[in-house]
């Protein structure tokens, strides 16, 4: 069951590579939030009930509802255009994402580990690098935020992988999520959108040598 969820998670990464509209990005973040909720619910067996409830609530409320809602509000509030404006054609993005996933599978082949499920490793590493790729290949700053959320989802999967042995790591992952996302979205929602309006990275080139 867990493997199925992680494979669906990998599929969302491919969808991310070819999505043309901001709205699709938001939908993907919602799907990923729900998938992470399911993975956490099925995987974390050795948690006390209270802690488990907090983590499940964080995935569903925060990852699947609050962050996507916030991003959508920013898009509406600042009249940001719908296109994602990639630097590269979608086909190339798809190939690169496929390359990232294949490379993570190959890397996982060199691990001979009884503690870490290889599925978790592949899901996490693919998400981290797809997120980074999304950041470097898109023009809009808001797409960078989406890329960062994907990296965080990858990190969360990795923390779930060791979660049964080290529950504190999952809690730290949750803390990172809340702290960093709130902070980034806070700056974005409050300031950047108001000051720079339709923001792409070209407008952030005032600081240079």
């Amino acid at each position: 069951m867990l493997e199925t969820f992680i494979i669906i998670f990998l599929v969302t990464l491919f969808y991310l590579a070819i999505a043309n509209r901001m709205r699709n990005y938001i939908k993907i973040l919602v799907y990923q939030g729900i998938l992470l909720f399911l993975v956490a619910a099925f995987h974390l067996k050795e948690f006390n009930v209270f802690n488990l409830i907090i983590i499940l609530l964080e995935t569903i409320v925060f990852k699947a509802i609050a962050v996507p809602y916030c991003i959508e509000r920013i898009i509406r509030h600042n009249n940001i255009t719908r296109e994602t404006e990639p630097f590269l054609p979608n086909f190339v993005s798809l190939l690169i994402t496929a390359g990232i996933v294949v490379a993570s599978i190959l890397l996982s082949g060199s691990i001979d580990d009884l503690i870490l499920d290889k599925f978790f490793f592949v899901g996490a590493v693919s998400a981290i690098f797809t997120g980074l790729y999304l950041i470097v290949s898109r023009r809009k700053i808001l797409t960078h935020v989406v890329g960062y959320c994907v990296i965080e989802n990858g990190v969360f999967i990795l923390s779930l992988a060791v979660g049964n042995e080290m529950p504190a790591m999952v809690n730290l992952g949750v803390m990172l999520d809340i702290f960093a996302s709130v902070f980034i979205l806070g700056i974005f929602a409050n300031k950047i959108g108001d000051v720079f309006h339709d923001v792409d990275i070209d407008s952030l080139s005032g600081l240079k040598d």
Partner: protein
Amino acid sequence: MITAIYISAVVCIVIGLAFSRSRALSTVLGVLFLAAQTMITVHGFVHPGITELTYFSYDALGLVLMLVLSIISFPTLIHSHIYLTKPQASTSSCAAYNASCVLLIAAMTMGYLANHAAVTWIFTEITTLSAAVLIYHHRSKLALEATWKYVFVCAISICFVFVGILFISLALLHDGCRDLFYTDLMAHKATLNSFWTRLGFLFIFAGYTAKLGLFPMFTAGVDAKDKAPAPAGALLASALMNLGFCGIFRVYAAISGTPVGDWARIVMLVSALITLFIATVYMTRISNVKRMLAYSGIEHMSVVTLGLCFGKAGFMAAMLHMVMHTFVKSGLFFHFTQLWRTYSSKMIDDMGDYLKLNPFGALVLLFGFISIAAIPPSGLFFSELLVFKAMIVEGNWLVFALTAFMLTVLLWAFAKSMFRIIFLPASKPVEKIKISAWESLTQLILFALAAYIGFNPPAFLTELISQAAALIS
């Protein structure tokens, strides 16, 4: 016990400063914070080696870095006070500045003392939060750009450190250890799974480079030091870089002497040389004084990291270098506020004739330049010499030649800009304004302290540094 008192005092002071709308109250709270900072430092030196609240140990490295930070926190708050009054800033921005400045100093202190990988990580996160408020102090478009870049790069770097910690925790789980104290890492040094440890170190190193100012993540730090108010920039360019070093060193110490440790050395060496190259290239074409100081900071941190790569002798030289760099670099940033008031510009092309416009300030700036450029009688000269000696003793002539060449070019570029500011005539007429010589006193003390430490390092300091060096095998 004292640690708990310190943390609760800091929380109260930060809340008080954030809501304070009265200048007198803010000053009182600032003085109280300095008292708390002195208290925890004295406590650490009276009881070296103790562990409090489970997660904070007053070990040699933590004590040295905490002492240095406590010393520069006095001038930082004094210059912040001058900065906020000339010209008078609004009460709300003063409150945000003061609260985040105190929070930054406290978070760095706790980060140095943390004995658990996750706790160091948490306090590094808090430094990002408080530094962002300081960078955004001016509420301008460029300040917002710098804040956004800093927060975004630091958020990614913090994710990287977390992933690294997860990989290290996997390595520890193989040995049946479920905790992430640095002592646990040390204890399992010989048997750590090499795949996970390598991957973990790589991520932790890449993540902390955002704070340390090395390749690949140094960029955001340069923008941040440029846009942050100069007294806050002094903290970002000195003590915060030391926190990045602390995060990397504690993991490196735990794997040194193993095959993974040798591999980690190569990673650090390559990163330091690339950073030195980047700093050299940028310094030759720099036009902004603050960015020049920021690039000089990443140059010195490359030297520190190179020292760390060359055994115990190199590490001891690196520690000494880091201590003196903290004093000198923060002094130069404190002095920048005077340059700004004289020329109302950061651009080197707009400056000149500083010796006539502000004679005492210019002499202090010249002393600061000699100190940071590691020209005798600068203390940094001795530590750089010791780093070179460690390279030569290990027979690494190529690294020695590359470093020496790049440092020479850097010195030329730095001197060209500094001498232009101090001696050459200004490109346009500048009105002479009165600046009290007292404002330069703190810088003079910091530069003289660095020179004194270079000539005659106090016994307790060398003792602490050699204790910290004992962690490396």
